[in-house]
């Protein structure tokens, strides 16, 4: 069972990660809201949000990559959501539901390899997994069923690119970078690199 147990420093580290990416995301949201205002007259405002959507999943995939154990992807996404709520996110309570659903998308991928394989392939797939479940959720929550299929496809593709780029490629790079510094000795990723 020790595989499922979290140590205090791991909990705090994941929460810290969520805050770091929360801050980064916030900076992105300012850019996105500017862009979405510009796009509003054309009816394309939701596209702006899709561009930064991948940043949402970064805490989740990076935490899973570093800790490499069951449940990390989903728990860290819920933690991120809870922290968003603490910071007073506009959508408040709904963010927690979103967190569970998005985290599950990544979790399924890591579970598919029985938490033994953490490399570029599973990272990118996990990012795509988060993207897919989150899009399904957006579909239900925001009533996308009322929108035209063409727009939905464009939205999905932008979100997919954003997810794989940010949560897949970038997180893998930064995780490896962190492992090289030797700071990750007490985490699974650091031990794998040693």
């Amino acid at each position: 069972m020790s595989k499922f147990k979290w140590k205090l420093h791991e909990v705090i580290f994941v929460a810290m990660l969520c805050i770091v990416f929360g801050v980064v995301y916030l900076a992105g949201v300012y850019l996105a809201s500017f862009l979405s205002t510009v796009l509003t007259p054309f009816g394309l405002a939701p596209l702006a949000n899709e561009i930064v959507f991948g940043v949402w999943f970064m805490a989740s995939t990076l935490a899973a990559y570093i800790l490499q154990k069951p449940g990390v992807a989903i728990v860290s996404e819920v933690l991120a959501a809870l922290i968003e709520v603490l910071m007073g996110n506009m959508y408040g309570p709904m963010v927690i539901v979103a967190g569970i659903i998005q985290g599950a998308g990544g979790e399924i991928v890591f579970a598919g390899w029985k938490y033994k394989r953490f490399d570029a392939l599973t990272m990118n797939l996990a990012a795509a997994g988060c993207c897919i479940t989150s899009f399904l959720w957006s579909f239900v929550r925001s009533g996308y069923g009322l929108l035209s299929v063409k727009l939905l496809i464009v939205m999905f593709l932008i979100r997919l690119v954003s997810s794989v780029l940010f949560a897949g490629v970038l997180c893998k790079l930064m995780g490896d970078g962190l492992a090289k510094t030797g700071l990750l000795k007490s985490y699974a990723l650091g031990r794998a690199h040693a």
Partner: protein
Amino acid sequence: MTKLNPGYKLLTLILASLLLSTTYSTTLNMLVALTALTVTFLTPGVNRRRLTLALLPFLLTAAGMFMTGLFFSSPGEAEIAVRVVDQRTLYATSWSTALKLASRIMAFGGLGMLFAFTTNSMELVMSLMQQFRLPPKFAYGILAAYHFFPTIRSEYATVGAALKVRGIKAFAFSPKRIFPMLVHALERSESLAMAMESRGFEGGVQRAVAFRVPLRAVDILFLIGTIGILIVGLIFL
């Protein structure tokens, strides 16, 4: 509102939002949004200036969704062209789609603001621990990290400035900018955990509670009442 049990309030609003996502009723959505915002505005102790400011991005999002619905709604049956703007033919169904989508954003946003402006974050975490079995390790871990939010935010600015001084171009999501912050996060979490443990913090043991967040009959009433009213609304509107 501020006196309600935060955990149960969270649960109530989550359930309410889930119920709302099953409907496209513009009337119900707008009623929910208006009620939630009015209640928030009238709750004593709420920072009304901040609330008004917070409405701005929220209305922008709703406006964005409105225009999207207007131009990109899925084709319905029996469409009647009602108006032509910029050689774009708009259909009657597009108007109603746009209203449906925008009103939904308003309803969710209203509930979200109701929660955000009437809830104390410390009490929320305590309530999640006391009423919803969130392990203390997570509760205090989250709180410890949460209090670093201002530090981390200024750090983000500092790292950005430091890169600029050295003539390195780094955009908002650049790894160059995020990496130093991750290193700090790692070091900080190690020392925080060590500090907490050296002061006797233990996860699995029975602990005394300094901040008791009560659960009263009012909270249950609020849960049942809100959901009940919503279900009635769903049936009749």
